[in-house]
């Protein structure tokens, strides 16, 4: 086994943080990177500039492709840190084994870096709303967990008219939540406030309930009659958006969805959970109307100089090769929308996910957005076909603490259904083509 050639002291690492060639690697779980204190360390978060490359991924055959996709190259120095040597050393060895020439380990993250308040750490501002499987398990079994104020918790297994997805195995205690209960079946926009209220009360959710949502990714095929039925984690983000709009104050997503629960080795059940409806949601709906943008405001945003309508669709949809959906006829894009690619097609979000379906390192998402002109100083309304992908992108921006983020709920479905609305197709001229397509 390859020996670890170099170990850095805290002072050595601190002095090298400004070095632009340094490739600092955080081998801890992605949730620790985001801010969770998984080992009760003094302070949470990651060392500024670090890239997330959890040890878990080093077991994948295609690990080196993940490292390369992050732009981590073999010629510049690599420094790996983890909670302990058991985490950092195997990742450092994998780099050496792959031909990286200058690989070192920093071994004092918990004892020294996290413990010393003078040393910088960064985290995802709303990391508490993107939860690890271990936290969820603790809340479910003990009723309490760190970073939780206490009180009732409702866990929702989200799906789109696919009860079988819930029945074949769900996290113990989870209710099934069909997006149809929150989305109108004719527009796929959020339902009326009264209907949303009724659906939430039936599921036992008040404004003060902690709601945790997750779904199962089961390889959606766009040729299926209902591909959304296989894109459960997208459904979870969609429901999270509608609940935030309604006014649920503590909405959380299980990072990675059911996959993370299974990866942690936790059991699922086929036993249906008991639903305890509540009599009163406890507040006006919507409590956060600004989170949803409808057509008139979307048009105003296109004309404004401090706003973006953000197209979270695939490249073939953006240039008008495909509509993206078998139930939408017209192809093309909203003129003036800013492109923020989702991934392969209407049911895939590769640009927003890691290869284990956890949400992508947030700095990478922000960097892609920045290159396209999507920045936190502007009002950004994310949209797609009918709001699912837009909701996942929105949730990422919300996690980052961006002050003015929304979903343009109607999206391409609504825009394209009125022939009076202009449409663009083809590859845009470079000046307006801010999105980078590889």
């Amino acid at each position, binding site marked *: 086994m390859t020996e670890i050639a170099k170990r850095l002291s805290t002072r050595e690492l601190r002095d090298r943080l400004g070095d632009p060639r340094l490739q600092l690697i955080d081998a801890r779980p992605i949730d620790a990177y985001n801010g969770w204190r998984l080992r009760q360390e003094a302070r949470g978060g990651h060392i500024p500039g670090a890239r997330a490359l959890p040890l878990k*991924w*080093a*077991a*994948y*055959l*295609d*690990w*080196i*492709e*993940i490292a390369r996709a992050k732009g981590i190259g073999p010629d510049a120095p690599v420094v790996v840190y983890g909670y302990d040597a058991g985490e950092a050393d195997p990742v450092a060895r*994998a780099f050496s*084994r*792959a031909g990286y020439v200058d690989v070192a380990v920093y071994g004092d993250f918990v004892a020294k870096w996290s413990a010393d308040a003078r040393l910088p750490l960064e985290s995802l501002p709303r990391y508490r709303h993107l939860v690890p499987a271990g936290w969820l398990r603790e809340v479910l079994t003990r009723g309490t967990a760190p970073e939780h104020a206490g009180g009732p918790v409702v866990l929702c297994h989200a799906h789109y008219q696919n009860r079988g997805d819930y029945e074949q195995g769900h996290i113990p205690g989870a209710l099934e939540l069909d997006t149809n209960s929150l989305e109108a079946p004719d527009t796929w926009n959020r339902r009326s406030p009264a209907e949303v209220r009724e659906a939430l009360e039936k599921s036992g959710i008040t404004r003060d309930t902690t709601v945790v949502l997750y779904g199962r*990714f089961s*390889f*959606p*095929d*766009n*040729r299926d009659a209902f591909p959304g039925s296989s894109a459960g984690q997208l459904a979870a983000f969609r429901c999270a958006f509608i609940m935030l709009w309604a006014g649920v104050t503590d909405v959380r997503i299980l990072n990675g969805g059911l*996959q993370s629960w299974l990866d942690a080795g936790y059991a699922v059940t086929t036993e249906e959970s008991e639903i305890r409806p509540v009599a009163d949601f406890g507040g006006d709906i919507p409590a956060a109307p600004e989170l949803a943008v409808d057509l008139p405001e979307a048009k105003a945003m296109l004309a404004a100089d401090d706003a973006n309508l953000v197209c979270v669709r695939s490249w073939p949809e953006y240039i008008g090769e495909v509509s993206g959906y078998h139930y939408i006829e017209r192809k093309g894009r909203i003129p003036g929308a800013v492109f923020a690619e989702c*991934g*392969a*097609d209407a*049911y*895939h979000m*590769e640009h927003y*996910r890691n*290869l*284990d*379906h956890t949400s992508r390192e947030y700095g990478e998402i922000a960097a892609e957005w920045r290159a396209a002109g999507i920045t936190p100083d502007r009002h950004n309304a994310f949209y797609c076909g009918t709001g699912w992908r837009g909701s996942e992108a929105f949730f990422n921006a919300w996690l980052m603490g961006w002050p003015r983020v929304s979903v343009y709920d109607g999206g391409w479905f609504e825009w394209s259904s009125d022939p009076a609305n202009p449409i663009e197709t083809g590859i845009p001229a470079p000046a307006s083509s801010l999105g980078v397509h590889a």
Partner: protein
Amino acid sequence: MPEPPACSDEVQLAIVREMSGLDDALARYEYLIAQGDALPPGTGELRSERYAIPGCQVSVWIRAELEDGRLRLSGDSDARINRGMVALLLRVLDGRTPAEILTADLSFLDRTGLRTQLSPVRANGLAAMVERIRAYAREQLAASSSGRASR
């Protein structure tokens, strides 16, 4: 073209043997890449929408043609690792009858760890490739039972 071995199990066993000597993830990755590099490059016709497997961020194409009652498979991808997965599936399934394809257990995917050691997104891609080949086999069986040849 040489006749494929009588039993796809033999090919599966050979792949399991080849991979059993590879003691870390990178070695298994490099094996997959080498398998993909040995796959003949796809023609323009193969690399068309008709044969594309949906949902893969990097396109994968698999085509099947019936020849003397057997499915002749070809495939390609722009990603070398995907080409490697296509190459392994073709080693096991190319030249089999539709019925053999539908009953092949493909246990080599588990015995080599391919199914569990790929990242979930790649593992899903692999599952989609298997499903596409099985769908071709099902189409052929349905066509022959209804008395018409397909393709």
